[in-house]
């Protein structure tokens, strides 16, 4: 289970295999600025400071260019961590909005 750490807050959560950054953070009861959740609007871009991600869908060049990818920009709604990763949000902080989800995040419900 890959770990994701969100800098600079230092929050770390475990992701399930195949889960995107967005899915994982939401499952742990966090919120941050997101848009279409489908890789088209580029609002959920974060910076990948450490680790490797892959994408579970085609991502348009206009949304995430090769240059951006090489400098660490990452589309969090479509990115699946391949290793433990550290990300930084852009002009945003994680908000804990669902403490119950956080408490029970480790429970698999199917």
């Amino acid at each position, binding site marked *: 289970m890959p770990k994701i750490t969100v800098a600079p807050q230092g929050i770390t959560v475990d992701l399930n295999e195949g889960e995107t950054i967005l899915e994982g953070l939401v499952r742990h009861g966090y919120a941050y*600025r*997101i*848009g*279409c*959740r*489908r*890789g*088209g*609007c580029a*609002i959920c871009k974060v910076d990948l400071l450490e680790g490797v991600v892959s994408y579970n*869908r*085609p*991502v*348009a*060049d*206009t*949304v995430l260019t090769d240059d951006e990818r090489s400098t660490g920009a990452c589309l969090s709604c479509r990115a699946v961590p391949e290793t433990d990763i550290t990300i930084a949000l852009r002009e945003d902080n994680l908000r804990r909005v669902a403490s119950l989800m956080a408490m029970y995040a480790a429970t698999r419900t199917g």
Partner: protein
Amino acid sequence: MAVMRMGYMHVRVTDLAEAKQHYANTVGLYQTLEQDGKVYYKGWDEWDHHSVVIEEGGVGYVKCGFKCETPEDVADIERKAVAFGYPVARMAAGENPEVGDGIRVTLPSNHEIEFYSSMTAWGLEVGTHNPDAFPRHMVGIGAPRLDHALLWVDDVGGIEKFFMDCTGMWPTERVRASLDDDAHTIATWLTIGESNHDIALLEAPENKIHHFAFEMRGWSDILHAADIFAMDDTPIDIGPTRHGITRGTTIYFFDPSGNRNETFSGGYRCFRDRPVVTWTPDQLGKAIFYHSRELNDRFLTVAT
């Protein structure tokens, strides 16, 4: 000038298979053609060959087309658009499958807008002989027809004037910087007289499409649509709720590529002599999301 309606919307989708699932099974459109990486759809209450075109590769706006009554109407718009000063090109019959001759105008925002007068007739799903009220086996949300689109543009006032001077549309509602007569126009909703708006323009730093909308039969269909979105895991931006602007009821949702769609219903009768409604920026929450009276993160930031 006799523009009748927005006839088609053409957008890019990153994954064609997932987009087909969305537009056919969730939105409930009927596929009429698949060719050259593009798929063509129509709603059950439309009679022309297609109203939505999806093209594989990338995301966002390609173009839209407005249907006019006659070739003379298109020629009239051509003359006016040329005089107005926007780039105008001729469009040959068949450049778009099943669409006749027309023109293509390029707005200063780089959006291409086509005008045409004929498209292959396909037929209404319920037919025209002693028809039933709706198709017995509607799919997904059962979207009957394409209604309008909202484009992000840099020059709302200028492009609004183009549509008014060259196509005969007029504004039903606007967002303006203040209630002064000469206040800067931030957004406008334009109609040709049937829908509450056929095209809307919103001032934004990038030239994109904010959404395109399907007209639904009423509030209960809007609720039903939201239930289908839950079942189909379709992300909802907001809704079901009501817009202050147009009074229409709405859900904004996203296709699998992130293009925003809308299910829209209601509004009011539009006549040329109805006074224009003005909204001010301090009331934008009420204008866009009438019930909550608050904007969300996404309305002014997400476009494709």
